[in-house]
């Protein structure tokens, strides 16, 4: 592992956040940049933020749809870390200067009541280890200019995480047929997308099982109390200053977010 490169690439992405301007893809700077190196760049960034006082609140799973996997030429999802400074209150405002080119996705969030440690975690284990599921909006964002990402770019960039909003009401996962939970996503009161739980690898709980097993490779365990965003139920929708988004999920209620006007 080239520690110098890992640090340099973490610095490269940090500059984008600091300056508020997207940067050159890492895979352009180094065509040999690998997925495992990319995860180490992500871990480096998270380690720094934790040192600065941020707290890890959970994980997010990305690239869970066939369409996204095809787009990036991959056959499995990726994941990123959730931190306490990424939380937006339900129906709260997200200042636009905190994002670069945000997109919004509706998801099902899992709150774990027990640790989930790979490598043999099944969907059944996930259901039994879950306290509640609830509806979530994820605001994905890319520190790479114009979302010109390959798999390694988004992995290094914390799976293009931005912010997340939890809402609705918590429900035991056993009380729902997760693959068939319907979803409607609205932008400024206009329907923009519909979806269903099965959009995330056939079952959102299977995505969480994938994550637990993937993390085993990196020596990480999903902890009780963590929030897991299990993957988008429809394509991400671009957000502009002043846009208001909300989503409704069958049996789970609704969750919303408002983007602030851009300060000039």
């Amino acid at each position, binding site marked *: 592992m080239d520690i110098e490169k890992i640090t340099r690439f973490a610095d490269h992405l940090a500059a984008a956040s600091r300056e508020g301007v997207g940067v050159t893809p890492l895979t352009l700077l180094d065509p040999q940049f690998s997925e495992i190196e990319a995860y180490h760049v992500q871990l480096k960034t998270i380690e720094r933020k934790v040192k600065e006082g941020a707290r890890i609140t959970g994980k997010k799973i990305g690239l869970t749809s066939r369409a996204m996997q095809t787009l990036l030429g991959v056959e499995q999802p990726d994941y990123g870390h959730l931190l306490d400074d990424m939380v937006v209150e339900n129906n709260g405002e997200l200042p636009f200067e905190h994002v670069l080119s945000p997109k919004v996705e509706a998801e099902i969030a899992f709150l774990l009541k027990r640790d989930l440690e790979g490598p043999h975690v099944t969907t059944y284990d996930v259901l039994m280890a879950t306290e509640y599921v609830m509806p979530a909006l994820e605001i994905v964002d890319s520190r790479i200019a114009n979302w010109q990402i390959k798999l390694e770019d988004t992995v290094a960039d914390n799976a293009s995480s931005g912010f997340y909003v939890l809402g609705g009401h918590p429900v035991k996962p056993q009380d729902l047929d997760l693959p068939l939970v*319907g979803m409607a996503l609205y932008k400024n009161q206009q329907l923009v997308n519909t979806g269903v739980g*099965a959009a995330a690898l056939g079952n959102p709980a299977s995505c969480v099982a994938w994550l637990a097993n993937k993390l085993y490779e990196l020596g990480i365990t999903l902890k009780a109390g963590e929030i897991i965003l299990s993957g988008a139920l429809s394509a991400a929708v671009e957000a502009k200053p002043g846009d208001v988004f909300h989503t409704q999920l069958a049996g789970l209620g609704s969750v919303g977010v408002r983007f602030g006007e851009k300060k000039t």
Partner: protein
Amino acid sequence: MQSELLYKRLAQKLVDAELNREVVVKLTAEYPELTVEDGYRIQNELVSLKLEQGHRIFASKMGLTSQAKMKQMNVHEPIRGYIFDYMNIEDGILPINELIHPKVEAEIAFVLHEDLEGPGITEAHVLAATDYVVPALEIIDSRYVQFQFALPDVIADNTSSSRVFIGSTWRKPNELEIDLVGVTLSINGELKDLGAGAAVLGHPARSVAMLANMLAREGRKLHKGDLILSGGITGSHQLREGDVVSAKWGGLGSIEFVVKTR
């Protein structure tokens, strides 16, 4: 406005195309002046021909109910048509040898326990008048070459109605969030499409309300006992001999069928 005779002749042409499994060129190629209203006049003639042949109306249906399809056809209102009794399949087999180039789409259907007479019918009226909501797979099979048609053509062709499978899980409308019923459509075990009820005009009940209001313009209404297919939640997907189609609805069960020669 065209002559009565022309409406009858064009309706007969479409009935023959269905029966003989021979596609025809869209009517507007020869009669570019045909309007939406003409389309419905031809459809009325087509319905009369079917009834004269001894068929019975089994259900009403709405088409072009998604934003995507309305944009594609450049329309602001869905279209309506009929499903006849011979189109209702109960043995799980889609007889491909009777069809031209069938496609499948997943829907939610409504059964009414009260008449609905427009104008002014809203989503709330529909829900109050609904006895049950039921899952349905609709088979569309345009009688036009390669599904190539303008709006008056598809209306004249009874909105491409061909066959229908009605599911066995029936629910009272207040037992479900109808706009949030999730749907998956798989062909040969592969997930092909998905969506939620809201894909139909924001709420499937809105589609039924629009149908009642459209009928009111002709002094007609929806009747107690009517079955209404509200429109595709998924897109429509081409079917081939040997395909096994499976669809699931959140809280509304599932429907499966196979495509084969009978």
